[in-house]
């Protein structure tokens, strides 16, 4: 894994998340995901195994077309990587995107 080489300089955290809401990562959840990701300084990458995309781009995230049950690997790299990964994990696996949408940045 590329990111690991940089671990010495920057913190890299990684987590595997399963999409659990029935509608999958469609538009509104995708928006919540990128809004959450954009609140962190760290670089955030999301991979479904085939494709690796920028977690802050709604176009790229929604094009992953993650349906219910899809597993996504989220990698954050940067000063607040740990918090970013935790926040995204919470959004996807605990809240299932059902919270009211986050305040616009």
């Amino acid at each position: 894994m590329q990111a690991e080489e940089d671990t010495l300089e920057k913190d890299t955290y990684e987590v595997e998340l399963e999409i659990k809401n029935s509608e999958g990562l469609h538009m509104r959840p995708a928006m919540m995901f990128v809004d959450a990701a954009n609140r962190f300084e760290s670089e955030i990458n999301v991979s479904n195994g085939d494709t690796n995309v920028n977690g802050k781009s709604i176009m790229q995230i929604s094009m992953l077309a993650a349906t219910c049950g899809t597993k996504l690997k989220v990698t954050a790299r940067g000063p607040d990587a740990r918090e970013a990964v935790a926040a995204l994990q919470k959004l996807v696996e605990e809240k299932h995107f059902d919270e009211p949408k986050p305040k616009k940045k």
Partner: protein
Amino acid sequence: MEIKKGIAVSPGISIAESLIIDSEDYRIPRRSISPSQRMLEIQRVRNAFGDAINELTRLESAQDQAESGKIKDIFAVHLRFLHDRSLRKKITDLIQSDMVTAEYAVSTVLREIASHFANVQDSYISERAADIYDIERRLLKQLLGKKREDVEHLKKEVVIVARELSPTQTAGFDRKYVKGIASDAGGRTSHAAIVARSLGIPAVVALEDLTEYTSGGDTVIVDGNRGIIIVNPDEQTIRQYEDYSKEFAELEHRLDAIRQKPAVTRDGTEITLLGNIEFPDEAEIVLERGGAGIGLYRTEFLYLNTESEPTEQDHYEAYEKTVHVFEDKPVVIRTLDLGADKYTQSKRFVPEPNPFLGLRSIRFCLQNLTMFKKQLRAILRVSVLGQVKIMFPLITNRQELMQAKMILHDVMEDLDEESIPYNRDIQVGIMIETPSAALTAYSLAHDVDFFSIGTNDLTQYTLAVDRSNELVSTLYSPADPAVLRLIRNVIQDAHKARLDLSVCGEMASEPEHIMLLLGLGIRTISIASPMIPEIKQVIRSVTIENCNKVARKVLGMDSERQISTYLRNAAREIIPEAF
């Protein structure tokens, strides 16, 4: 150099740079730009994103949170896309690498994303393609909207090249700089055609795929006399056309001199030359060109210009403006003639399988009485201001005429009750434009004040030919013996009943048909304003005696080709410069 053949709809020659107006309703054709134009196109993309974001933010904040959370969500998602740098980069990269226009890059990138979604099995996700198309349209609307504004603030002469032009678009044209019109779609009676004729701009339509062969800024020659468009002509062709254009301008200039002279034949028969108009502003042009009134005021523009149905006041104001220009001269207002056109059909819940034989024109009005009465009320109200006449289109039998007249009578009674003044003796006439009306003219004549022969529809219905269909359009000719027999029949019946009679179809604006029409007994002609001087010139060059001879000769012929050749030769002998 690319030469394309279409239908000539408005005469004249022009050579200018092209300005292309794409439409967000159609696929945007791929058009190349020069390397130096890339920055400009990229800036256009940035501006379009910025403006689309502003527009969406306004829309979003206008939504009531409590009631329309879902809609607000949709706007919010679209906004995220518009803010997405990687999306913007994908578009500007395409402009950089492939040297294409902003419109093409936006459309290509977003459609690619949309098709990615559409191919996903999960329906929640595949339906998101609709969101992407929506974003595409919003961006294109910004890009094209700016282009359309450009058309209203031109600084140099251009030829407008478009897929199709709507009445609203053409209404905003700056006459000083728009030197020609060329469109992929359209026919002789399409809006682009009618507007071009009334403004006196050369135009060619039905060019099919011209917008794919032309890039903005290409030099384009519009030959509105022969229906030819030349893209990027070579030096020799340009020179040839400059000469041709000069000759044409000289002819026009000579015609200028006769504008204020009467339309009288050499042996002293007076002919009434009227104008056909579409928009109220054209009334002035008819007057300028020497028209003695309006023989056909089409009223469809009132319905085509706006999303909602026009109010009685909208009708009234449009008519008042025209009547005011002509004061004591006749203004014949034709009631709504919509139905078979693309516009109405696209608005129908289920399109008609055969619209030209369907619910169009007077039939449509008789089934939509509230709408019909609104228009009749407005016409009656302006009737006190001048010499206004009412004309019903597409009458096919007496019953229809009686129904229409009964409704007119109802409206009169309503006005009486409200003590609103109108001309009680307003003249009521009909268009003779179906074979059934032509064959029963003797009976229809009892119940009207005048006939006007609409040769376009009469020819189409008699010969069963759609002239905008290029596969059969060569069969379309008002000089066909079948059509001429019907016309003669109408003229005879009108004369017997001592009825006013005119011809308002395109046939009357073609110089080669004038001698025949006069010889058959026509004394009133209504045509598009740019043709008035030329037709007047023809009238002033002939004698009725000669016209009668031509008509007799033609009625004895049995083939369209023989008749057309004979008429062209006869006209060429008398007015060689018109051919």
